[in-house]
């Protein structure tokens, strides 16, 4: 998935890294395959279509958000404000819906616009301020959290439109959950943007070598701003998906989600190295993360252990991808 753009970035580098590159792309799919087989040994239920559909449905809010963050991370950036944007989106969407069916599309539109606006603010500050995206987006998450708390007074408000949750939590033909389909559509849209649009190609070029990209006339600043907008937009959609799953459950339902998103994207091979990875790999990364956490659940590990596992996954996956990327003899530190 999305091999075209990544491949051209690989050949541009003029190194004999085709096999290494393929290994880097395939690693997460191999892990996913092995994990599924291992899960199958634990319980046959893991291999049933019903469970797999459920898994994708469960993963939808984090997965949809991760699609957007992937673009930012190909660019060597990171977006830690997505957790706060997801919370904000769920709150705003419920507030605008106000329990009326006719407000549904208005609410979705408003949510997408506000998510993109936060992303736009991130993008402008990072592209023109040339500052660390890590710290800036952390700061932005505090700002967004503060705004949401001020706007709601700290209590959950808003009522979702009738039929909204029923439709999204339903299943088509009693098999495929609608939310799972939404996630898959988001992935397909992401793959399309990444491989078929000029923006998608530019993201890879700027991420692989910002200076060379600038000299080649690629609009790095514009690409950066759009990437953060896309991240904000997908986080907005992730918030709507979360609202569909949990309903009006508080003012900060997305708290800590940036951890899962980051873990999934890094698992997929989109590390801070820049110019590598892609939306398809992120999809596999999300599934690996959720199967691993489900397995931990089945094994009876407490929630705390899952936090530790997530941290170890972030470290190990990032180290593994760094190692794969290096093992061809490129020893520059």
């Amino acid at each position, binding site marked *: 998935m999305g091999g075209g753009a990544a491949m051209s970035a690989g050949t541009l580098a003029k190194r004999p890294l085709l096999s290494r590159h393929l290994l880097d792309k395939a690693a997460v799919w191999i892990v996913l395959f092995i994990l599924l087989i291992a899960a199958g040994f634990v319980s046959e239920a893991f291999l049933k279509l019903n469970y797999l559909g459920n898994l994708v449905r469960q993963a939808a809010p984090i997965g949809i958000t991760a699609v957007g963050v992937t673009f930012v991370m190909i660019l060597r950036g990171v977006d830690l404000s997505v957790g706060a944007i997801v919370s904000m989106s769920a709150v705003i969407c419920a507030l605008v819906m106000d329990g009326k069916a006719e407000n549904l599309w208005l609410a979705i539109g408003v949510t997408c616009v506000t998510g993109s606006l936060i992303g736009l603010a991130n993008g402008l500050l*990072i*592209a023109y*301020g040339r*500052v660390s995206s890590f710290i800036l987006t952390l700061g932005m998450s505090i*700002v*967004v959290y503060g705004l949401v708390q001020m706007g709601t*007074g700290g209590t959950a408000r808003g009522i979702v439109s009738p039929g909204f949750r029923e439709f999204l939590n339903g299943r088509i033909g009693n098999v495929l959950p609608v939310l799972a389909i939404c996630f898959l559509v988001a992935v397909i849209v992401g793959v399309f943007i990444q491989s078929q649009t000029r923006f998608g190609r530019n993201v890879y070029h700027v991420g692989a070598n910002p200076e060379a990209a600038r000299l080649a006339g690629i609009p790095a600043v514009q690409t950066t701003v759009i990437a953060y907008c896309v991240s904000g937009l997908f986080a907005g959609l992730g918030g709507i998906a979360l609202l569909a799953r949990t309903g009006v459950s508080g003012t900060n339902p997305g708290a800590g989600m940036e*951890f899962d998103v980051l873990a999934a994207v890094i698992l997929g091979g989109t590390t801070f190295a820049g110019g590598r990875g892609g939306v398809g790999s992120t999809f596999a990364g999300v599934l690996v993360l959720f199967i691993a956490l489900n397995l931990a659940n089945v094994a009876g590990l407490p929630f705390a252990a899952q*936090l530790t596992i997530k*941290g170890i996954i972030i470290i190990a996956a990032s180290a593994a991808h760094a190692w794969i990327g290096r093992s061809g003899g490129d020893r520059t530190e």
Partner: protein
Amino acid sequence: MNRAQLVIPFFSRLPPIVWALLLTVAFGALYNPQFRTADNAMNVLEQSATLAFLALGQAFVIAGGLIDLSVGQLVGLVTVVACMGFEALPGWGLPVILGCLFLGAVVGAINGTLINHLRMPPLILTFGMLSVLQGCIFMLTDRSVGSSIPAIDFLAHGRVAGIPASLILVILATVIAFYCLQRSTFGWHLLAMGNNATASRKAGLNVRGLTLIAYSVSGFFAAIAGLVLAGRLGTGFPNAGSGLELDSIVAVVLGGTPLKGGRVNVVSVLAAVFFLGTVSNLLNLMQVPTFTQILIKGIIVILAILLERPRWAAAPQ
């Protein structure tokens, strides 16, 4: 020579953060009668101690061009472990304290070792460690546990001749940090690494050793901060350190340290800590709602990061 000629150059040489601190204090003293009492001033200094230790430790790491996002949760872990230890082992106060300091240094050393050997970006590694430590805390407890001991209480609340004991310790730590970072060979080497790690390695500096020491120091200081916080809270609260890592980075950056490393001013970092403490105190006294305070804090973070922007930054990162 008139007085202005002496005074103006002195003030124009002051780092911007000291100006910000002086202006905030002046504003508070003029407009808020509660703010200008000596008692309140001592309170602010006392409450800033936790962040001061964290920021000093973070200054070592950032000066070397690295970063440590795990210190917040490390503070929480030390607070929980210390209070559990004090309760479980009465009479063993000192060994527990030393054990906690050792724990902090070891966690820091693990960070440094992993960064050296896995050759990972410090941001990702310490971010992962943040999650690992959080998991460790909640495996120990999901609610407040244990209790403090008088010695630690004194460290947090005690006064020596009217001066907070914690302030004395903070000043001591600042002097040590100043000497290590700005007046010793180790400091020169660390700053050289922050300026250009590759060139430093080629010039024969032990880059891995420097990284290891910087993270161990950061972990050690985080452990001190955790002990002081244990005294202030009187119990081991699992979420005690959440978000402190960001506060410490903001303090270091406000203190004029570029995030890319290579330059540091320990006294400015301390001034930044007191600035953040004073702003928070003033907002409380002016009865600004909590949520507005959160918003203001976020804006300070963004402004700090925008102001530190080095002109020579090559790429948006």
